[in-house]
């Protein structure tokens, strides 16, 4: 039983991690707290449904497709809704208001385009499973963990082992110095949004076959945000770890306490971690006068 719970929680946790990475990436690169990230996940789920159900795409091709589409949408979002505000006033409050407005626009647009009823993917990612040592390993769960792990690994390698990743990290750490050494900061921030949007869309395309695609699943952005905070906001590895921990706390808390308190347990943990370690698990403590 414990292994089954651990595995299904790991699958859900990996989905949270992908969303959390997006939150942290965007914050690290631009200082923006982007509340519309959850809606990128929602769009990934719904666009994936359209590609699989209506256009008969194979599942993995549909996932690649939604990552591209939503990534581009994320760049447009940054250029239209955030960049002008950053250029003119760089007010964090105005950017937050803009992101909330964007959240509502995307949410209502999804209802208009796809309707309000839950939409089922026509088939699971993978059928059946394997029984090993008395434990049932569903293939779908293993596929989700595998795909999410590959995405996170690819991202990690690109971010830390390529010139391109170095550039993104430089801009995230010090935009002014990066500009002085000739890095196109605006271009780099745009690419960051592209990657964050793509990862959120992948999370949606992994989430929907397990449950369903619907305009309301954007609420998962709150879990992704919580995972990012838990791991250390702005820390990419922390975001990955935060998502996995959050998934496990939800699952085991539901099992041993009550499923009615699933969210209460998860957010209680978040608050406790922040009280004891305000910078998150892997975040760096900053001086208040820095």
């Amino acid at each position, binding site marked *: 039983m414990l292994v089954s719970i651990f595995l299904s929680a790991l699958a859900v946790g990996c989905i949270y991690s992908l969303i959390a990475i997006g939150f942290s990436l965007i914050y690290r690169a631009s200082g923006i707290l982007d509340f519309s990230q959850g809606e990128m996940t929602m769009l990934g789920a719904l666009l994936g449904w359209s590609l699989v159900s209506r256009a008969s795409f194979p599942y993995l091709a549909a996932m690649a497709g939604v990552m591209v589409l939503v990534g581009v949408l994320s760049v447009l979002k940054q250029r239209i809704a955030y960049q002008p505000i950053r250029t003119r006033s760089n007010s964090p409050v105005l950017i937050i208001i803009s992101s909330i407005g964007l959240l509502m*626009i995307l949410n209502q647009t999804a*209802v208009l385009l796809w309707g*309000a*009823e*839950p939409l089922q993917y026509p088939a699971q990612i993978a059928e059946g499973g394997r029984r090993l040592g008395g434990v049932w390993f*569903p293939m779908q769960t293993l596929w989700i963990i595998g795909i999410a792990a590959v995405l996170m690994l690819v991202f990690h390698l690109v971010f830390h082992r390529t010139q391109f990743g170095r550039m993104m990290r430089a801009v995230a750490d010090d935009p002014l110095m990066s500009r002085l050494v000739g890095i196109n900061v605006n271009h780099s921030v745009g690419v960051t949004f592209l990657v964050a949007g793509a990862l959120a869309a992948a999370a949606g395309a992994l989430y929907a076959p397990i*449950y369903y695609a619907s305009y309301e699943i954007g609420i998962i952005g709150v879990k992704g945000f919580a995972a990012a905070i838990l791991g250390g906001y702005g820390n990419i590895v922390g975001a990955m770890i935060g998502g996995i921990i959050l998934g496990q706390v939800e699952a085991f808390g*539901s099992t041993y306490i009550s499923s009615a308190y699933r969210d209460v347990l998860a957010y209680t943990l978040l608050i406790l971690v922040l009280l004891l370690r305000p910078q998150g698990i892997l975040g760096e403590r900053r001086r208040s006068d820095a």
Partner: protein
Amino acid sequence: MLRMLRGIGKQRLLVLVLILLLASAVTAGCRSGKPAAEPAKQPAAQQPAPQPAAKDSQAPAKPAAETQPLKIGLVSGLSNWPAVFGVPAMEGFQFAADEINSAGGVLGRKLEMVKIDDEGSPFNSQQAIVKFYEQGIRFVMSGSHSTAVLAQKPKVEELKMLVISPLATDPAVTDTKDPYYFVDMVNNIYLGGSIGFYARKNLNLNTVLTFVRDDAYGTSINKAFEEKFVGDGGRVLAKVTYPTDAKDFRADLSKHLGAKPDAIMLTGFAPESGLIAGQARELGFQGTILATNPVLAPQYAEAAKAGAENTWASGAFSLDPNAMTDATKDYLAKWKAKFGKEPNVYQAHAYDAVYLLKKAIEDAKSTDLEPVRKAMLGIKNFNGASGVTTVAPDGSTQKPVRMMQYKDGGWKYITSLEPGKF
């Protein structure tokens, strides 16, 4: 004021104005509390229009109020999770209204449907009743779920309106001696009790793991189920109460399936019930799944996929040829001709709800509330699309319950249980 505006600066002022415009546009796009597009070409004035002089002096013209359209309020959850049944209910209401209007209306008056989306919110649902009242509407069709209806009910009774619901099956909705709220679907006492009875007596199931949806519907279904199932000697091994937005049940299933229950009882709606069934099968559960009416909606099988096999449900409606009356067959033909697909349980009951009101108005020969309400309470053996309906003194409905089994990719009608036989 001007000094304050000057202090903000032009650029910031422009941004502020843009944000306000954006917020207004978003608010205007929201559905909450806003009636849908009003039907065109309807007289806006409530004052009676002057009538032309009758050509035949021996046939005086009807008073203007008796020729004005009769406004009927329609409230339903058209967004969020209640859309699963709220949208079909609205479709059923409208189909019936269009048909009635094509045939000349009720007592010579066309029906004008005024729609509100309550988004599944009990507060919005209650406010919809108030909005209808303020518009002079006294007859309402409600496609809202039980929890929302329980919020509507006190207002309906306070304002003395007449509401018919095709799907709010919580017994508390009609727990009234002098009802203003009517429900034309059999309630949860029948739906939950019949499946509990059938599970013991016909399926010989001894133990069950129950998933209780944490709202009025789920708890009342579970209560009725347990009364019959446990009362007949069955045992509930464990009861899992889940929040209405839950999607992952693997943790609870992993914890409790080890006790090897004969069956899993589902008390919720189609989407999450389908997820429970699918996840249970994924974890190796091969026993029987028990459920009630909502799982007959297509979303259950879509969510459960192959896991829907061997599900038994107590249903209020069936399109099986052995279960259909002539009225149901007639309705089925008309619905398929218009929509190109079969109707579901909510559409059929919503259709009947409008026709029940029509019958009550015609029996009362009036559109005044009290005569119509009394006529509603006198309806016996109404032969409608959803079956033969008799309105009980508390406003509930007595109808046979259909026992259905999901087998080989579709729902099969097995038998009917008459009220009083279980």
